[in-house]
């Protein structure tokens, strides 16, 4: 448990490699994706299309849509997704089509 991270993790699980924004992280398999990203210090998941402001998880229950990320070209709420091995996650891109 790193003490310089915002969150303390009480019960770590087995981790798998996951890519977010071209950086590889080891995240607990099956864990809530939004929580997992927060636990490794990723606090902003996207920038808003209106003003390009950074946003991260707010409600953690699938209601606010601020935690949206792009997985395999589909924009999904990270808090409604579970960590799977070798997941490739990107910040949503409203400007240009990502080549996958």
């Amino acid at each position, binding site marked *: 448990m790193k003490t310089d991270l915002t969150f303390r993790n009480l019960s770590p699980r087995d981790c798998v490699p996951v890519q977010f924004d071209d950086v590889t992280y080891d995240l607990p398999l099956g864990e809530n994706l939004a929580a997992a990203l927060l636990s490794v210090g990723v606090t902003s998941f996207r920038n808003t*299309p209106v003003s390009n402001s950074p946003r991260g998880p707010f409600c953690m229950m699938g209601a606010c849509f601020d935690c949206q990320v792009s997985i395999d*070209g*589909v*924009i999904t709420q990270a808090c409604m997704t579970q960590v799977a091995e070798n997941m490739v996650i990107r910040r949503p*891109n*409203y*400007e*240009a*089509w990502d080549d996958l």
Partner: protein
Amino acid sequence: METDYAIIGGGVVGLSVAWGLLRAGKTVTVIDGDDGSFRASRGNFGLVWVQSKGMNQPRYAKWSQQSAALWAEFAQELGHNTGQDVPLEQRGGYDLHFSEESLQKTVDDYEVLKAKLGGDYPYEVLGHNALRKEEPHIGPKVVGAILHHQDGHANPLKLLMALAADLRRMGGRLVNGKTVSDIQKPDVFDITCSDGTRISAAKVILAAGLGAATLGPKLGFKAPIRPQRGQVLITEKLPKLINRPSLIARQVDEGGIQIGATNEEVGHNDRVTQSGLSGLAADAIAAYPALAKAQLVRSWGALRVLSPDGLPIYQESQDMPGAFLVTCHSGITLAAAHARLLPQWLEKSENAPNLEVFSEDRFNLS
């Protein structure tokens, strides 16, 4: 309260006409309904469209062309007066085809209409490869498209806002949350609302969309209009996918893709259905396969205001002269004509447009 014109209905038709009358120096009061009523102006597709209109009535094709030609200046003036931008793009629009037969049939029909319009019908036919150069994301099932250069699209909600703002700026009155219950004409017109509000006016314009079906007969109109549902979808914001609009899909200025629309005779039912949404989604994906991964975030059922032949009705009441019926289902396309040209017809000016073909007389109703 005394006003030159009382306009019943504060949608795009009512507001456009009100705007034009105010600019002509008339006093105007617009009487609008409440937040929850059927409001075709809020649910439409936003096209400023010429092609495929008036295939059986060249006058309607011409009327649409006149309006489209006036739109840019109209939008600019509204923007300049109110400081509120009215986005408009007129770089042409497509009729997309999935078979050579349907493409050829439409071209044949367009040629007939073009002749009746004296050749003023600028369109070209794009085969799949030529279309692909214009629309890199177009799907393989689209065999080709008719690109009509007078087509375009606008932001209808911003148009409504700017019209309302400019109306107020010019001293027009806009009262909303009202339901008109009765109209009498002892000498001038005496309009009563359900909450007791009374408005008197020298002339009345009925621009109440579907509301004309009940109010029209009170003013001596046949008002043979009916609702027709069009389900519309809108996706999340996406990167640039579609350059020019078509009836299947367009990319709105905020970035979402708007997809439409069904044509259902279901009465005053503005709900959406899964089968309607699925059919529209399938058509959109056939045209633009990248849309398969796009999320639907909003949908609605808009009720078109349709006359029996789908064309507008412009009619002065014979029983109550000074009362006018103004109704159409292309309120966005015709907004400029309603603002610039219709007031001359209402005022019977010398240069008034000839709108005889749009009178109620064309409907043989007993």
